[in-house]
């Protein structure tokens, strides 16, 4: 039997304001934050007691005790306890990847509605036992007699007290994501000025979105925070120019301002078939019509770590039969201002498009007036797995308000991966 493919509606989204690391959410766990975002969504769309097809979410930095994090959060929520759930982890791609996972099951008719999301805390980080200490303790556990165990304990050393802290580091290169991005910025010739300009735009756009009430039905205040803590509108190029580079050495162009800070937060998105939404009198903000994930070899082929979205995009465009210019809104995740600018430069570059993408002509440039129009991660902050949900919900709402048009999402992820997706306005079916 060939399944019929159904249109997948974005009904709405919800998130808690994003906080800076060790800020207001310092003592909130991933479960706490995901639950807060989910509760707000349930309340907004009257999902109390509903048995949904599934809830899919994930966290990049996750405690070992958070086995089945999402399922446990569902059990603690007002959704019916019969709602299944599972966790996904694909670094910063998590939030969009969960959206695609839920959307695909809806499209195939396997489920009618579901929630996708993500959460991350860099404050309540999972510290692990020092590997040497862990080995001694595990060995001790394997020895049956007390004398033998005591003898083993002589292997203990003071240095073993030091815990293993999760590092923002690529295992195969030893470089942090920022250092990787600094190499990309250099290889693509991205200037400090261009990065700072994008940063200022991002903050001003997000502040304007808050001011006009755009975020009102996208956010549930949490622990005293009503707006994203990182938001700093009204900065100037002169002020940003004073900051010292944090990546790429003394000649580097990347600063604490034009890179996203470590953040805490959670986001969720409600997806459904048209029938399911209409039956419950819920809005349809937009449809998810295409998605693509790609990965690059940053280890052996010297490709930039965060360049995978540049590869995912043309594959998706070809399948959709459209060009890069056929969008009204571009949502490119601002992990670093340089990442966005490298991606745009790559799509404009004849060498990259021919040699790496195997295309006869560049994808071309985009109208940057259409880029991250309600602010991006530089302003909002970037709790890794929560970013995808923030962008999907915000883009769907913008398309709904316009009543027409098409938007594209591009998110880079650690380990050389990237996820892109297309959302189309639901037009009059709102």
């Amino acid at each position, binding site marked *: 039997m060939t399944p019929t493919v159904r249109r997948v509606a974005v009904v709405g989204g919800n998130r808690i304001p994003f906080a800076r690391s060790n800020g207001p959410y310092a003592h909130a766990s991933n479960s706490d934050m995901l639950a807060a975002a989910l509760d707000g969504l349930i309340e907004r769309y009257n999902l109390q007691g509903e048995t949904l097809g599934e809830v899919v979410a994930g966290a990049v930095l996750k405690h070992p005790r958070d086995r089945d994090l999402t399922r446990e959060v569902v059990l603690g929520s007002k959704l019916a306890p019969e709602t299944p759930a599972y966790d996904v982890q694909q670094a910063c791609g998590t939030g969009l990847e969960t959206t695609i996972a839920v959307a695909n099951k809806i499209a195939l008719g396997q489920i009618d509605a579901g929630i996708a999301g993500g959460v991350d805390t860099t404050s309540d980080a999972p510290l692990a036992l020092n590997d040497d200490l862990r080995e001694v303790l595990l060995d001790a556990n394997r020895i049956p007699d007390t004398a033998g165990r005591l003898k083993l304990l002589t292997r203990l050393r003071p240095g073993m007290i030091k815990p293993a802290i999760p590092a923002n580091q690529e295992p195969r290169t030893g470089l942090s994501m920022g250092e990787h991005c*600094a190499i990309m*910025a250099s290889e*693509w*010739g*991205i200037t400090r000025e261009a990065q700072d300009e994008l940063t200022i735009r991002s903050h001003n756009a997000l502040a304007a979105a808050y001011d006009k009430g755009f975020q009102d039905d996208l956010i549930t205040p949490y622990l005293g925070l009503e707006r994203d803590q990182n938001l700093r509108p009204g900065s100037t190029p002169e002020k940003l120019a004073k900051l010292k580079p944090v990546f*790429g*050495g003394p000649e580097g*162009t990347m600063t604490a301002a034009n890179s996203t800070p470590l953040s805490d937060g959670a986001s969720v998105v409600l997806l459904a078939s048209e029938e399911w939404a209409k039956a419950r009198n819920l809005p349809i903000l937009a449809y998810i019509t295409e998605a693509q994930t790609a990965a690059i070899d940053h280890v052996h082929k010297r490709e930039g770590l965060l360049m995978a979205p540049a590869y995912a995009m043309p594959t998706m465009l070809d399948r959709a039969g459209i060009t890069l210019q056929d969008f009204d809104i571009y949502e490119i995740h601002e992990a670093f201002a340089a990442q966005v600018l490298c991606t745009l430069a790559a799509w404009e570059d004849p*060498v990259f498009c*021919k040699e790496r993408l195997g295309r006869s002509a560049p994808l071309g440039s985009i109208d940057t007036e259409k880029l991250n129009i309600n602010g991006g991660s530089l302003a909002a902050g970037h709790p890794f797995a929560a970013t995808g949900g923030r962008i999907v919900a915000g883009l769907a709402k913008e398309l709904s308000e316009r009543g027409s048009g098409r938007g594209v999402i591009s998110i880079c992820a650690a380990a050389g991966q990237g996820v892109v997706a297309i959302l189309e306005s639901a037009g009059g079916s709102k």
Partner: protein
Amino acid sequence: MSQDLYTQIVNSPPGGFIAKRVGLPQPTALDRYAPGQPVVKGQVLVGAAPGGRLSSSIAAVLGEAKIDTATTLAPELRTAAADAGLDASVFNPEAGGDRRFKGLVFDATGIKDSAELVELQRFFHPSVRKVQSSGRVLVLGTPPEDTKDPREHTAQRALEGFTRSLGKEIGKGATAQLVYVAPGAEDLIGSTLRFFLSPKSAYVSGQVARVTPGQPVPADIDWERPLAGKTALVTGASRGIGEAIIETLARDGASVVGLDIPQLGEDLKKVTDRLDGEAIELDITSDDAPKVLAAHFKAGVDIVVHNAGVTRDRTLAKMPEDRWQSVLDINLSSEERINDALLKGKRIPSGGRIIGVSSMAGIAGNRGQTNYATSKAGVIGMVESMAPVVAERGITINAVAPGFIETQMTAAMPIAVREPGRRLNSMNQGGLPIDVAETIAWYASSASGGLNGNVVRVCGQMLLGA
């Protein structure tokens, strides 16, 4: 012959420490080529003055040679790289990052007026500090004589002052050259770019080469063995520079024939046996030498390297005629007679190469060497006069002019003469016979049909005769 002792000492940690403290010259251990190596070990940055005509030719060469390349953001360079299949990264000096380059290549053909020479400053100022040890700087221009506008002629001629000065200040064993590419010769720059970018040109700096229209590069060229199927004659091949030349031509695929005087027959045979070559014992000044050679090469000889040469030093006041005459006859007149015989007998086919060995003495002059310097300046004259003549037959003629090369001859010099000779150049050291040989192999290459009438010095940019 390897590096001189002093260079070895200052390149050891304690020796380098002392040399730095005492302020002694610190010659860099120069990169040298070994078969199987990539053309360039490192990244080459390409820039261009707006409106240049060589972007696509440069990109094609770098792409074919699989050279790791970066370009400036100039759209014509990005397009040229894409068209050439060259996966080049971008370099923007304002974008930071710890970038290092093994070579800088700049297409200056777009410079039509002296006011536009500032393009040199704009490209090299931010990039020159990023050049690695044994790095390479190449500026490509239009031969002034081939320009139509006086302003353009002036500006293109000005390039020479730039490369010669940069060669003297860049240091770390890096070299700088100017390559004039005549209109119509754009497709012939491959062998020259490869030579000047590679460690093969270790001891060549501050030079000007001209690439002019000539025979096309063979489509099936094997860059590891560009002389495959060719026969090469090298005179004075039993030892020293001659031995290095014949070895290098054999390495590049040529069937080699070594020639030397009968007294050195045994040494010669050792060399040619090792290379699977032939040995000819012959005094090139003898009356029948041209006839003997023409008879020997009935099937033709593709490459003729006139390397044999002698010195008989004396100040002119003490110079008897025989001492004068033997040097002139061995170093110059016999070469002319042999060329004439081989050309007249049609022994050198189309695609052939005649290569002379001049000397720094022939350019700058040298006390006690009026005879030698006259003969070596004459070799330059021979190249100049014969270039248009042989060109009609698809043959080229060029010469090298070695400076201080580490040989048995220079090792025997008194230290007061030897040390200044060795150090008074941009590399602060003497060259090796292989450096001369590699330059000759560059002329000899089947891909070098665009080189005719060149005299390139292999002198580490000696301060004399500049």
